[in-house]
């Protein structure tokens, strides 16, 4: 019954190397629901906590294609279908002139896709999050590195996990309330 009041356990480290190493050992120990927090991106850390690849590039590609089509057909419709007018003796479908706007819209849509996609996949915005309950977590945006094993993890057992984390020579291990 304690479980559902606890989000997980948080171990604090002082260097990136320690955290990375700890993360490897944790997943090595069979923990699956783990997460690591660092003040800057650390190579390999994501993989270490069991994350494999993102679909973001695909989203961007699709968005870009969508933008391109929208861009060109908007112009085609306006200039050829909706209200055809002779402008300076140029053909109605002067497609070379339509290129720039098409291109701009590709970029616009793709960029939008990248940003919104990233936020959405990261589940942001989440102003409230249990990890913020850990008093020292504020340092995660400064110079401290944290490893978190969530209570949802099948292997999670408050005492055992605490002990396990202690073996990772964390500076400190604390509980995260929900």
């Amino acid at each position, binding site marked *: 019954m304690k479980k559902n009041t606890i989000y997980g356990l948080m171990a604090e480290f002082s260097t990136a190397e320690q955290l990375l190493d700890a993360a490897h050992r944790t997943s090595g120990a069979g923990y699956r629901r783990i997460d690591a927090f660092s003040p800057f991106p650390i190579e390999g850390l994501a993989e270490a906590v069991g994350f494999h690849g993102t679909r973001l590039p695909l989203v961007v590609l699709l968005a870009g294609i969508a933008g391109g089509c929208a861009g060109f057909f908007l112009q085609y419709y306006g200039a050829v279908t909706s209200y055809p007018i002779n402008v300076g003796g140029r053909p109605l479908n002067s497609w070379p002139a339509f290129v720039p706007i098409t291109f701009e819209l590709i970029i616009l849509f793709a960029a939008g896709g990248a940003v919104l996609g990233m936020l959405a996949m990261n589940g942001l915005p989440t102003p409230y999050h249990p990890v913020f309950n850990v*008093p*020292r977590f504020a340092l995660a945006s400064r110079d401290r590195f944290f490893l978190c094993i969530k209570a949802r993890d099948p292997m999670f057992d408050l005492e055992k996990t605490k002990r396990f984390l202690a073996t990772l020579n964390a500076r400190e291990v604390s509980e995260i309330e929900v």
Partner: protein
Amino acid sequence: MAQIFHHSTNTIARVSIYGAVLLLLLLGYTVDVVNNSSYVTEVHNARPQPVPFSHKHHVGELGLDCRYCHASVEVSSSAGMPPTQTCMTCHSQIWTGAAMLEPVRASYRDSVPISWTRVNAVPDFVYFNHSIHVAKGVGCTTCHGPIAEMNITWRQESLYMRWCLECHNAPENYLRPRSEVFNSFYRAPKNQQELGLRLMKEYKVQKLTNCTTCHR
């Protein structure tokens, strides 16, 4: 570190994002609705007039021809508004006492013109010519609506450029035989399409969509 935000803010945050998007779409939609509302277009707004002249009575019931009052419609850009004189041709004999008609008599007596409220108006930079439309088989009611049923005249169409172009792009959908132009009870036949196309050939109707047709 203590939480800055309450648990609920997560939901609020997400909702507000979708909300913003929705709001934008809604705004655009509203603008469109307002633009086409009778508030802006005056469509179907019966305008109060100094004399409650009823086209229903004069055209619908008495069967006056449009040209009796709008005399210059076939020769001039303007259809022409009847001088008080025209009203008095009849109303010096009938309804001579009608209170309703006092402004007309007054106008005739003191030769002070009646100022009617304009019902169908286009902006000043639009140069519309009645005579050519009439000559090419565009009926009065095509633009002015069921005039024979209007007690107080209202505007039937928005008179937006978009609306003008509907006909200028596809006259065949609207043309009628010249003989029917002033027929206020005309109903388009089943075969309007082919009739229209035939009339276009016959009357040499062009699809004039270039700007100086109306703007100079």
